[in-house]
């Protein structure tokens, strides 16, 4: 983790130093930016938002902290995206798992394929933005699943996991969720609508 302390620095130094840190940081390395000027903080936040870098902002007293998380995209990826991508299809994709296996037929084979697919996802370039789990697909993210460690690895690399809350509830597995975050139909639809592509299993 890197801490960028720009307290007391005049506009636009906070932005310059944030930008420098972003382009120098290893992809996925979290950055914490400390500021004490609300205008500078707003400008840095606008810049990050404009460039699709995800962050969280908190403030205590006069001090404002902007945290760019491990799952924040590096600026290099961001630039490439804004430069080269045609509108509405920026190479991003999400994966939808609406079953706990791939395909029909042998359940044993289907589960092995699902495991292999998730394992292989880890080396995809780029990684999916999100993986969505619905219906029996939620078994993949609950205790007892054999792909938890692979999914956790993906999550650590910044892949967002949306798990259908109604489905967890239906299977009585709300308390058994091991990876990902509980989501709803609205967010899931929004994620699929916004994605350049949906890989549907």
């Amino acid at each position: 983790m890197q801490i960028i302390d720009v307290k007391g620095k005049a506009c636009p130094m906070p932005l310059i130093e944030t930008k420098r840190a972003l382009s120098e940081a290893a992809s996925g390395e979290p950055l914490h930016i400390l500021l004490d000027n609300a205008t500078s903080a707003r400008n840095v936040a606008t810049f990050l938002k404009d460039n699709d870098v995800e962050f969280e902002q908190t403030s205590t007293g006069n001090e404002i902290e902007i945290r760019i998380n491990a799952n924040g995209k590096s600026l290099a990826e961001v630039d490439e995206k804004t430069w080269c991508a045609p509108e509405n299809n920026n190479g991003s994709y999400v994966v939808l798992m609406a079953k706990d296996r791939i395909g029909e037929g042998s359940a044993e084979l289907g589960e092995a394929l699902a495991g292999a697919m998730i394992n292989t996802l880890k080396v995809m370039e780029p990684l999916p933005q999100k993986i969505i789990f619905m219906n029996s697909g939620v078994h993949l993210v609950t205790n007892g699943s054999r792909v938890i460690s692979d999914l956790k690895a993906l999550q650590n690399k910044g892949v967002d996991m949306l798990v259908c809350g109604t489905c967890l509830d239906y299977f009585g597995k709300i308390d058994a969720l091991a990876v990902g975050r509980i989501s709803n139909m609205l967010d899931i639809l929004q994620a699929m609508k916004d994605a350049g592509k949906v890989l549907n299993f």
Partner: protein
Amino acid sequence: MQNIDLLKLVDQGGCSAKLSAEGLAQALAGLPKIVHPNLLVDIETHDDGGVYKLTDDYALIQTTDFFPPVCSGAYDFGQVAAANALSDVYAMGGEVLTAMNLMLFPEDQPLELLAEILRGGHDKVAEAGGVMMGGHTITDAIPKYGLAVTGFVHPDKIITNSHARPGDVLILTKPLGTGIIISAWKNQLVHEDIYRQAVESMKQLNRAGAAIMQQMLVRTATDITGFGLAGHALKMAQASKVSMRFHAKQLPLLDEVLHLIEMGVIPGAAFRNKEFADSQCHFDASIDYNHKMLFFDAQTSGGLLMCVAAEKANAAVKALHRDGYPHAIIIGEVIDKQSHALIIE
């Protein structure tokens, strides 16, 4: 005289001095609308100045502008602030008649500094062919300087921001990037040569540009200042009820500007301008972030953005090059009103 860097006297926040266009529009919305038979151009269209008709062939243009230091040297600052204030007269197609100083000055600074600022202002007014009539000075922690200016124009030759017609070509007379370069200079991020280039550009009067507009029968123009190219173009597009298409790659730039934006030298004013104008701008997906922010960079004493009949555009650019604006270039055209006022390709 002591060598004092005026920029060191400016508020440490350094995030520039103009109220946001959005906030200002809200605040002004409550004021009564002024109607008078002699008032030819009022604040309704957010034009550069007001125009008051005295006779059928003589109208007064009145305008004012002042701000904290935008450069280090006092004599430079006086000239830049004056050129900036005088510019509104030129943007309306007029000539300068008289000017008065508006000065706010810190009690604890040497008076030689004040004298140098005023000398800069006086020299610019003289260069403009105007008469300096006096002024008013009060104390303030941060120095500020500008002018109240009176100009004149024939009522039939007023140039406003509300008559742009689809088919007109958009010409910009000065390079963009003064806001970015001054911000970089304050933080020692740019070489003095580049800074000087920006100061020279800010000092240059728009007088010859205004004369060329009258020769080319231009009726719509504005000068590019604190709201940036996007902000001023937006006001012009809205007042004229048209849209405008810009070619981002054609924008004339001061040296080093793109490199500085890439470093992150984006002044606060650019973000504020973006907030105001962004929803009315459509940027093609091929426009990168740096070019986008260039559209929003606040300019001090920027160039004229003129709407020129297509058949006269090349002649106008040629005349501008001849008369001291080597960066003048066609940057877009006026089109029928679309869902977005500004379309940037």
